């Protein structure tokens, strides 16, 4: 994957002294604003409140992959070509995750949240921004080991339908399984991780029974409404791509979708401090797990 945003060696014409592309009046900022506005009006995908630095990097990566030269060039291509839009959405929404990323988060969930879930006859869980499904399967395995999985339903959603397809397949590169096995053990796994998949050439195929209570479905956190009430919501390393205004709106959506005493899980470097509902939650420990108390 190209990692260069501009060719830094290219000479800068004097009339085009580089200005801060994050400031509103720069040429790039104008082009990006027009691009995301156009995409919103043409297709309904709303990237207008994404955090500027990562948006800019990702857009330039897409520009190189699409073989166009400028942000405006990408705008023309994406507005006239729905296939290009699909690739654009993919490029802006692929989050690279891992099974049992942050094992201590899973450990705390097992210790503090699983006992609470035992008190409910049925449990609704929402993984918002599930990407390729690694977290959904990690959670399913944990719930299976705790004897809770049969009464759980995991709604794993993402803006991007092609990652959902991949998630549904339950197939992961075999080479990652060694790392995942380590994470699984650190996360407090009680069995042997290799029991949960079969190796086929260079792929690991997860046990089909793990998918039985997972619903993979498209949902857009930016433009869609709450769709259920949940006992648990995980939204990990998803809103880091949003600006502060959009983060606040999404946090309201998450709050509204949680039952009282429901649990919110965030990425390890995210916090509910400075969100509109910070006083409605209590922390469950040193990981980013919070219980809605009011």
């Amino acid at each position, binding site marked *: *994957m190209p*990692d*260069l*945003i*501009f060719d*830094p*060696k290219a000479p*800068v014409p004097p009339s085009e002294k*580089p*200005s*801060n*592309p*994050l*400031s509103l009046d720069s040429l790039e900022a104008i082009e990006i604003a027009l691009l995301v506005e156009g995409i919103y009006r043409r297709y309904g995908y709303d990237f207008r409140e994404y*955090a*500027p*630095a*990562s948006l*800019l*990097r*990702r857009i330039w990566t897409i520009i190189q992959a699409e073989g166009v030269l400028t942000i405006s060039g990408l705008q023309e291509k994406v507005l006239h070509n729905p296939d290009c839009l699909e690739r654009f959405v993919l490029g802006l929404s*692929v*989050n*690279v*995750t891992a099974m049992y*990323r942050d094992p201590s988060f899973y450990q705390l969930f097992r210790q503090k949240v699983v006992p609470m879930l035992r008190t409910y006859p049925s449990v609704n869980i929402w993984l918002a921004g599930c990407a390729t499904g690694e977290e959904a399967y990690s959670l399913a395995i944990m719930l299976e080991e705790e004897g809770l999985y049969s009464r759980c339903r995991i709604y794993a959603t993402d803006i991007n339908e092609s990652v959902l397809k991949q998630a549904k397949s339950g197939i992961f590169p075999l080479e990652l399984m060694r790392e995942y096995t380590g994470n699984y053990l650190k996360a407090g796994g009680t069995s042997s991780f290799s029991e949960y998949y079969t190796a086929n050439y260079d792929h690991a195929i997860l046990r089909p029974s793990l998918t039985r209570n997972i619903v993979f479905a498209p949902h857009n956190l930016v433009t869609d409404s709450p769709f259920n009430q949940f006992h648990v919501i995980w939204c990990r*390393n998803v*809103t*880091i*791509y949003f600006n*502060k205004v959009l*983060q606040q709106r999404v946090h309201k959506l998450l709050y509204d979708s949680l039952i009282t005493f429901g649990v919110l899980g965030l*990425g*390890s*470097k*995210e*916090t509910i401090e*400075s969100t509109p509902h910070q006083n409605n939650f209590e922390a469950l420990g040193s990981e980013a797990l919070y219980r809605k108390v009011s």
Partner: protein
Amino acid sequence: MIKLIVIGTSAGGLNALSFLLAALPPDFPVPLAIVQHRSREMSDSLLPLLNQKSRLPVEEVQDKAVIQNSRVYLAPADYHLLVDTDHFALSVDPPVRYSRPSIDVLFETAAYAFQSEVLGVILTGANRDGAQGAQHIKKRGGRILVQDPATAYSAVMPRATLNAVQADWVLPLGEIAPFLVRLAGENKSS
């Protein structure tokens, strides 16, 4: 006028950073943001080790943390650290040149946000991360300081950056902190 110092290092970086941070006074005004490549095993111990040595407070960046003077910000393990106008942002985009956090990503976004008011510092390291980021900083009028490869635990990273850009300064490790103090002093008088 330097408003942000970004530092990148990999192999040998813990010692170099400890040495550098210990030599900066507690009232050193300019914020420092650091990417140190590290193994997962090392990831939990780095912050307390640096805090032990540093007289400035060192913290791992939380998403959207506002950049404040007289503080040291460390990229968290397994996240890219980006500069977004007056605050930091994190991403879990794919590793760049096998690295997450990536020095190139920090330097490049720091160059966007702070333009000519950013100083990039490359210390010891065994790969080429940071060289492209240094080009971005130079292109936007910022400055680059490279640890003298002869004094580096691993000279690969300083050499790669020196090959990629015309560095403004090349200094042995021991002279970097006093130099930064002088540079920050010029901020005040200008």
